[in-house]
């Protein structure tokens, strides 16, 4: 489950899916974004909540990304979640971020980076297809994260906030 201080606020943008996440630290903001995205794909009572049993096999995936800035890093992270679902039906349920760092500098790439582990499930083909027929489990599956209105920023009170718009 997301940290209790994490606030996830969906909003309407360009017809697709979008949300703002505010949390006490940068890793928690990224975690909140990942869980909000995961909850769009496989809706549960709350982001990071459990899904009903029997839908898939527990699995863990490692994600390692670098980008020139935090906004690109967040877009890359969201696209990684989209890719993992589209390519192998993996739905993350929890994230552990390691070494999420950002070095502000004028030039050069790789000034923002992280390594993370995502715990989740690989949905079975039966689960996906029964869902399709019965309208049972899958929700809105974004196909890409956009740079549209992208924002990652530290607030005056020391918390962090991010805004992400997804193409669905």
């Amino acid at each position, binding site marked *: 489950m997301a940290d209790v201080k994490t606030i996830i606020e969906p909003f309407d943008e*360009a017809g697709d899916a*979008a949300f703002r996440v505010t949390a006490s630290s940068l890793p928690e903001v990224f975690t909140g974004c990942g869980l909000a995205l995961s909850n769009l794909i496989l809706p549960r009572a709350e982001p990071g909540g459990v899904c009903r049993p029997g839908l898939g096999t527990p699995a863990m995936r490692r994600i390692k990304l670098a980008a020139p800035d935090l*906004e690109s890093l967040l877009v890359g992270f969201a696209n990684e979640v989209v*890719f993992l*679902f589209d390519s192998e039906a993996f739905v993350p349920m929890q994230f552990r971020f390691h070494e999420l760092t950002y070095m502000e500098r004028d030039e050069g790439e790789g000034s923002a980076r992280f390594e993370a582990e995502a715990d989740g499930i690989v949905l079975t083909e039966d689960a996906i297809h029964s869902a*399709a027929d019965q309208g049972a489990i899958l929700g809105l*599956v974004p196909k890409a994260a*956009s740079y*549209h209105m992208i924002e990652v920023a530290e607030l005056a009170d020391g918390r962090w906030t991010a805004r992400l718009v997804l*193409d669905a």
Partner: protein
Amino acid sequence: MSSVWKGPLEMIDEFRWRIPSHYKQGMRADAVVVTDSEGLEVARDGEALEQLANSACLPGISGPALAMPDIHSGYGFPIGGVGAMRLEDGVITPGGIGFDINCGVRLIRTNLELADATPKVKSWIDRLYRDVPSGLGTRGPIQLSASEVRKVLERGAQWAVHSGYGSEADLECTEDGGKMEAADSAAVSARAMERGMPQLGTMGSGNHFVEIQVVEEVSAPDVAKVLEIHENQIVMMIHTGSRGLGHQVCTDYLATMNAALKKYGITVPDRQLACAPFESPEGQRYYAAMACAANFAWANRQCITHWVRQASAREFGSTPESLGMTLLYDVCHNIAKIEEHCVDGRPRRLCVHRKGATRAFPPGHKDVPAAYRGVGQPVIVPGDMGRNSYVLVGTQKAMEVSFGSTCHGAGRLMSRNEAMKAQSPAQVRQSLAQAGVYARAASKSALAEEAPEAYKDVNDIVDITHKAGISIKVARLRPLGVVKG
């Protein structure tokens, strides 16, 4: 997050409105919206007009940045945006094409009449729902080796036809013959191929569909005769694109282009408009990858056409040939192409970006199939699943005012969230049934997200394009049954 446009809009004529290039710093050309005064009020809502002004900031833009009457907010360009860039000093941008590269639509004729189809619509749609792979996480029945995958990317619909999924006649009635020559599969990432290739021959989710429709009204009988359509005839429409492969190509090259901005000293008002000079290595590589995704989409629609023909033949205990299931035309509405247009009285080759806009070439144009050259390029415009769709043809006026472009559909009015809050899928199914439309959907929320009320009325959009002269109405189609992704 919605806003209302408060910037300048100058009337050029009854159907064209200008945002002058002095509106904001960085604009290199005017921006022009093709719509009427009522459509303009709708366009003011949201960010679409600001996005249109942003697209006029791109280096090398030739003439105004344009928006078609179905303009609405997108990412980078607005949906309905058209931007023509000079090859020598202009850019190419994934944000002017969209994530679903070569999302498009095709129309298949049948020799069935309304009376033949009416008693069978339910079982026919149920069969199409079973036989045409659709929806989320769907894997298609086509298994390909790595070398075969590259052939699909480089040969497009030609690969599909030569693999038994159609005929040469299909290729003649597909934009560009279903293949962009610029494709180079080496420009497509392994990740894009991994994501997309299991999905060849699948419809996908969102607003993609297969519909059974009837030709409700013919408004240009002479043109309709050439296009071989008549009132009460049953036709079938397919709307889909390049699936995960196209999205991944766009995603990959947005990162490439964001890095290229600094290299080439380009400033853009929106990172989704990240771009590179067309002639640069990054620009050429993206164009080659985009062409691969376009080819994938054409192969995809061609394979789906095959499943649709097979399913329909089984339903009627016949064959596709006996049912007269020939392709009228296939158009793409998210793409960039090199085309020749007249600029300041001289022919120039331009990279024309169309994002949610359809090519609409006039009678006599060399790129219009020989069979249609006397009447102009067919334009297939899908509406929502409760109202109408249209067959139009392109015009010389479109060449003069919109780089040979017209609208692509109805355009959204509500976000998916708003639409889902407004009605449940069951309510939408019931109201469609009352309107005589039988609907099946693969994903949980598709019917509610795609409810007719979530869209502008395509009749209004098409009326504007007709009156503005950028395309001519030929036939109005009415849905009888729909399979939604």
